[in-house]
């Protein structure tokens, strides 16, 4: 088989960006939770809040580190593998990414050192500020990268001069038609992802009857957070869907498996095998009218279908269709858990109900999976375009010898598989180790200049020596 460099570059980008998004989707929400716990500890002096912050900062650190190294790859891959895209769209995408680095990456990196290693070197208030700034940094980062990606979905504020994009209005570029919805959707997703991560691990401890008080506090807070954010996400998701219907009708048609040029009323398909060649679905099971109600908020509303554009302008439908269903199914499951949590709390059975704790434990990684599925809908649903309706992905890859890209792709698959294995191993190790003991917490907070510091230092030294023997 002749290797196609454009396909290889696309696979490589899809693989590396999929791997990367796992980590920010955890750290954005987790940084926020850690800052909240630290703030609550300062306010109430309840040591469980500190214990939560000090425990979760460890998974946060390894997640953040992996996110950083896999993110650096992306900032160079635009050029290495999509050099023609960088050349023509650089004037729009470049400055947005530069703003991300200037306003977010440096901020996160600058204060991360103090957040992780500065417990004994700055005051508790200053430390809290550092954690808060890191959290804010992750949010700002999401703002810029969503702005850039949304511009590729719904381009605005540009003109094309000699084959290159020039910006006519930066306001329109940044706040392009899909950006507010997509930003809200993603930020909520990260909060939900982190909430279910914390809820899942806390439920696991409760099932194993370990670290009970710590786990109760964590589960309770995470479920409150889930109860706030999952219904909100349902609402924002609906608004976002309407926005897709308006600006990217073919993506929507692929999400819903709608083939006719115009279909009304639209059923909601629960199951189907989209058949690209025969331009129809196989084994279709649907609920009549429900699609119209969801998509148009009317009983008989119609939507544009896939056949309204020639086959070369359609995405790969099964991937979009099924990714969307995976995301929605997980969303419904999360909503169910959040509501069950409320009911059990009401009956005072939240920490005892085995089935509920098991289900919550099973949902530990579900936020990440939903985020991945959602991004597959967004990105593969936009194909064959890299900039919706204007630039085709296949036309703007780098003109490289295929062997080079094949080599790097194989390396990425090997290295990232290794990295994911190591990440999961160390996550497991941290979870097994459990939260820091209350006595250790006190010792760790003694300031470097405080009188107790030297004593703690000596104690620690003895401890280390015993450890060596």
């Amino acid at each position, binding site marked *: 088989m002749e290797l196609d460099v454009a396909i290889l570059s696309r696979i490589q980008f899809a693989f590396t960006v999929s791997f990367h998004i796992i980590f920010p989707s955890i750290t954005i929400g987790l940084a926020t939770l850690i800052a909240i716990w630290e703030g609550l500890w300062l306010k109430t002096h309840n040591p469980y809040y500190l214990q939560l912050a000090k425990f979760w900062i460890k998974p946060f650190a390894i997640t953040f580190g992996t996110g950083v190294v896999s993110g650096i790859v992306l900032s160079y891959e635009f050029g290495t593998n999509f050099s023609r895209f960088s050349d023509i769209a650089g*004037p729009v995408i470049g400055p947005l990414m530069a703003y991300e680095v200037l306003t977010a990456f440096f901020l996160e990196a600058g204060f991360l050192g103090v957040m992780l290693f500065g417990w004994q*070197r700055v005051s508790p208030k200053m430390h809290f500020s550092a954690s808060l700034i890191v959290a804010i940094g992750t949010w700002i980062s999401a703002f810029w990268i969503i702005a850039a990606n949304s511009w590729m979905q719904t381009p605005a504020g540009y003109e094309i001069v000699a084959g290159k994009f020039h910006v006519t209005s930066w306001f329109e570029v940044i706040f392009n038609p899909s950006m507010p919805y997509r930003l809200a959707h993603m930020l909520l997703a990260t909060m939900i992802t982190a909430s279910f991560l914390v809820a899942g691990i806390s439920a696991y401890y409760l099932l194993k009857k370990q670290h009970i008080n710590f786990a109760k506090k964590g589960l309770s807070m995470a479920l409150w957070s889930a109860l706030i954010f999952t219904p909100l996400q349902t609402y924002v998701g609906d608004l976002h869907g309407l926005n897709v219907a308006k600006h990217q009708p073919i993506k929507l048609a692929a999400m819903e498996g709608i083939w006719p040029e115009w279909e009304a009323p639209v059923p909601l398909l629960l199951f189907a095998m989209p058949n690209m060649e025969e331009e129809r679905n196989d084994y279709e099971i649907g609920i009549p009218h429900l699609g119209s109600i969801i998509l148009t908020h009317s009983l008989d509303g119609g939507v544009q279908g896939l056949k309204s554009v020639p086959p070369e302008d359609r995405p790969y439908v099964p991937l979009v269709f099924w990714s969307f269903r995976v995301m929605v199914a997980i969303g419904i499951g999360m909503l169910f858990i959040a509501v069950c949590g409320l009911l059990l709390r009401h009956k005072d059975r939240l920490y005892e109900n085995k089935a509920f704790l098991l289900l919550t434990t099973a949902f530990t990684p579900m936020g990440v999976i939903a985020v991945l599925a959602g991004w597959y809908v967004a990105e593969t649903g936009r194909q064959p375009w890299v900039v919706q309706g204007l630039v085709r992905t296949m036309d703007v890859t780098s003109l490289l010898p295929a062997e080079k890209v094949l080599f790097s792709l194989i390396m990425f698959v090997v290295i990232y598989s290794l990295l994911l294995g190591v990440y999961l191993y160390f996550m497991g190790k941290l979870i097994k180790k459990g939260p820091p003991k209350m006595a250790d917490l006190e010792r760790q907070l003694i300031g470097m200049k405080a009188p107790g510091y030297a004593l703690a*230092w000596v104690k620690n030294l003895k401890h280390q020596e015993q450890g060596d023997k």
Partner: protein
Amino acid sequence: MDYALFYFLILGFAIFMYTLLDGFDLGIGILFPWFDNNEERDHLMRSISHVWDGNETWLVFGGVILFAAFPSAYATITSTFYLPIMLMLFALIFRGVAFEYRFKSDTSKKWWDLAFSSGSTIAAFCQGLILGSVVEGIPANASEANSLIWLTPFAILTGFAVMAGYALLATSYLYMKSRGEIQLRVAKQGRFLLILVILAMGAVSIWTILDQAEIRARWFDGLNFLLLSPLPLASAVLSYIAWKCFASDHKAKHESWPFWCSAGLFLLGFAGLVVGLFPYLVPRQMTLWEAAAPDSSLSFLVYGIVIFLPLICAYTLWGYRVFSGKVEDYEEGY
């Protein structure tokens, strides 16, 4: 002042900051094989574990400034140097995660040591390769050919030169941050590396001048050499001071001098390079004005740079001050 020139300076600043800051922490990875017991390695890692992430951000910053302000140059350079860039990224992945996992591992520590030292070394070498081949110039459409234009004898020399330079920065950084036995050892290593770096700088300079007619003309036409002579002269003075301060019977106030002298050497070497290459971004192919993005993009980003770059420098400096002084071996992490 025109925008393109402004961004050229910002790009230069980003590259310089990167080589200086990530230089010393990559350099510590290069020195790793010469510190073979566990406590010493812990000490070395501790001296940079709170700053490596910020230091590496300058690499991303350099990349996106090139992307935003000179998209055509970004497209050409990154796709031409596809393999060395990929190798550098793979190496940076390994050394980056080693920071997180090394202190948490029991049995796999030696593997993280290997990931850290080989990752740092390869990343530094690849950066040197890319630098060397940029100086040699890129033929048009080089990315399409299955060529190894980045693997020339000259580029290999610059690869080793950059490694030596980073290792020198690392010894001078450790000279500030450590006490006792380690401090004495890095002082000796520092002197040795200083000689190596001077030899490497000399070799690279002479090779470039012999090989590249344009650069030769830039240095030796008319009175140019007289105007440019402060560069090599200042390098000699800084090397002498660094040598003197890398002493075993040091005075405390001179502990940071080798670092600043090494930083000065980097700055002078970098200035020498820019003198030779200006105004090309892709030598002999694309000047900074040809590669520049449209004014609508350049003017938009100016605000961000003018407002945020000073802030970044301020809080980065604050971060270093929080961790100033010697490395404490039993300090609690997170």
